């Protein structure tokens, strides 16, 4: 019988909480495979997906590769843990004109032949049945794994497909991702989700300075991201008034600094309102004026009760782009609509602002009223793949 073997990564680190983590992972796997016909079995240290339609195998693998917390998977054959049945199955593997190595793992020590010995026997069998095959213990072109488990079953496979790793989604709480429409923020969301965090997202919209299409683009990004993270609630906040006020009352070069401080305030307030545990941004150190250490000190200063996670902080643009392409948000991110960060862009934004300077600029504004007004404009869009 064809099956898919699943291995999980870091869960074994989780002592007493292990059950919670595992149950979350299993739930997530089942959710991801919703709509597919399959059977799920939990054996010691492995999960086995079976009884699926064979023509859906690749699709199922593709979906499983999007489940955080899975370390790797293999398309395998399941047979009874019986010497002859295993041999019969190994015979069917095509090894003509290639080097190979047989690995036998015997979790069930009741199996009559010791691992090394059985591996040799199977190796001989492969040599006999495959013209031009030869053993290479160090660098084989093909690996044949025979995994004998406690459940009276053996699993035979030759390929191990790497999955995303990380922690099961939902095992690390819920965060609020600031989603601008650029390349970095979806990647930041992906990386936090990889560490088990479920996401809601926040987008600042500046109609008529930004277009409906710019907002649509962010909805599309959230949908694309939800392939990995599950449903994302996107909170859209109108930022027009805030930007007009800052532009009118504050020094030009502080436009972005003050704007981001107000964004952060809105983000924290939304976290409180919707019971979210952290603010997530796509900032990368030094990438632009607002992402210098000093700028981040000043913008982070207004967030008092929540951590700010910046998973892209130490990454180069190239590295971020690579992930964006892998998770397929890149093409959407590069659509050329202005987002609210490019409106009212000053020619020379301040690179090393101080908290004091920012506070002085904010004296010209009624910050609390602006935050309040922004929050009132909240529109929630549920984004689902």
């Amino acid at each position, binding site marked *: 019988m064809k099956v898919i073997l699943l291995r999980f990564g870091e869960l074994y680190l989780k002592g007493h909480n292990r059950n919670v983590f595992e149950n979350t992972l299993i739930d997530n796997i089942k959710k991801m495979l919703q709509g597919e016909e399959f059977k799920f079995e939990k054996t010691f240290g492995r999960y086995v997906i079976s009884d699926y339609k064979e023509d859906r195998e690749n699709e199922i693998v593709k979906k499983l590769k999007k489940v955080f917390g899975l370390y790797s998977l293999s398309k395998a054959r399941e047979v009874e843990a019986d010497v002859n049945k295993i041999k019969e199955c190994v015979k069917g593997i095509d090894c003509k004109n290639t080097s190979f190595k047989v690995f036998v793992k015997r979790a069930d020590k009741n199996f009559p032949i010791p691992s090394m010995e059985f591996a040799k026997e199977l190796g001989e069998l492969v040599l006999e049945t495959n013209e031009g095959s030869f053993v290479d213990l160090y660098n084989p072109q093909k690996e044949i794994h025979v995994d004998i488990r406690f459940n009276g079953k053996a699993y035979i496979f030759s390929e191990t497909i790497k999955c995303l790793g990380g922690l099961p989604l939902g095992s690390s709480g819920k965060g609020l991702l600031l989603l601008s429409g650029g390349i970095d923020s979806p990647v930041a969301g992906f990386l936090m989700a990889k560490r088990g965090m479920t996401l809601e997202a926040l987008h600042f919209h500046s109609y008529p300075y930004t277009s409906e299409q710019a907002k649509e683009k962010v909805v599309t990004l959230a949908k694309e991201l939800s392939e990995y993270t599950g449903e994302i609630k996107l909170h859209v906040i109108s930022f027009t008034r805030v930007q007009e006020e800052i532009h009118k009352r504050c020094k030009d070069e502080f436009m972005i600094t003050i704007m981001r401080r107000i964004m952060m305030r809105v983000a924290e307030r939304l976290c409180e309102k919707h019971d979210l545990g952290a603010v997530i941004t796509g900032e990368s150190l030094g990438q632009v004026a607002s992402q210098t250490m000093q700028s981040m000190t000043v913008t982070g200063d207004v967030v008092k009760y929540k951590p700010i996670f910046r998973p892209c902080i130490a990454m180069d643009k190239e590295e971020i782009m690579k992930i964006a392409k892998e998770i397929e948000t890149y093409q959407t991110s590069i*659509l*050329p609509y202005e987002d609210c960060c490019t409106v009212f862009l000053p020619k020379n934004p301040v690179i090393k602002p101080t908290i004091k300077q920012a506070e002085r600029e904010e004296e010209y504004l009624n910050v609390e009223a602006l935050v309040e007004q922004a929050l009132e404009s909240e529109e929630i869009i549920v984004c689902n793949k």
Partner: protein
Amino acid sequence: MIYLDNAATTKMYEGGVDIYKKYACQSFYNPSAGYREATNIAHDLDNVRNKMLAKLKATKGKIIFTGGATESNNLAIFGSRRNGKWEYIFSVGEHPSVYNGALELERQGFTVHFVGLQKNGQIDYNQLEGLVNERTRLISVMHVSNETGAINDLKKIDQIRQKHCPKALFHVDGVQAFCKLTFSVDDFNADLYTFSAHKFHGPKGVGGLYVRNISSLKNIVFGGGQEEGYRSGTENVGGIMAMGFAVEHYNTQENFEKVASLQKIFLKYLDEAGVDYLKTDNPYIVSASFKGVNGETLMRVLQDKGVLVGIGSACSAKKAGNRILENMGLSKDEVKSHIRISFSEELSLNEVEMAGQIITQAYKEILEKVK
């Protein structure tokens, strides 16, 4: 809604819709079929051909119906490709359906030259004269710029051609001029002239190419051999018939005068508000710079106030920058603050006055906020 984006598309004549329906539901036969009902339709199509030729005041030549101007332009460009050391000349101001075709021609290894634009939006005739020679195979220049409304002096271009390369083909993308301006293709001896139905109250998805001498062209699509082999594929009969209706009912002289009077009134509002615009002899399109505000922002504010205007070619509105305006020497800020207002004779005086007020008022309001 006051619609001031008639260069993007126009409303169909209702009579055209009725005609379309007739050819979709009653006389729906395939004109290539052999029975009388079908051949009658082929005759109806030929009638429309004659109407198009009459509007173009062409003394000779044929009409190839196509799926619109993009297709016509592609047929004109790629259909006139020849092996050998020929050269192809385009203006920088062309619509993407010509300009991107020119770039593709270049990628295919052909020699392509681009003529720049003058400040008034017309092509640089001196530069053209420097580029043409006996190897010139094709000169492709638009009649009226879809971005700026500028009218190119096609007679002058023809004179340059006659002087230096009389054998070269002259293609004119006439999408914004056909029906709207009074002219004859014989005035400037166009070999190929593109038109599109939906710019003069016809349906979308249909247009054509006037071809003076059919043997100068090669087909670029292959199939059943319709349109004398130059555009295979069953004819869009309903669309073509509705286009015929539109061309027949479009009163070029009367509409021109009406639009000219509307534009004059509209420009007063711009003058009073200190808005810069390009001065041309074409009343249909006004290309204006609303200094200090972003054209896109103004467009969105206007849509909420019930006025629809354009920000350049709708087909390429998503692309950043503007090749045409930049080539004319406009600064980045001027390009950014650019808006295209395009009229139709169907607008009332009242609508135009309201639009003038709304646009200048919105401009002041935004300026107040962003200055």
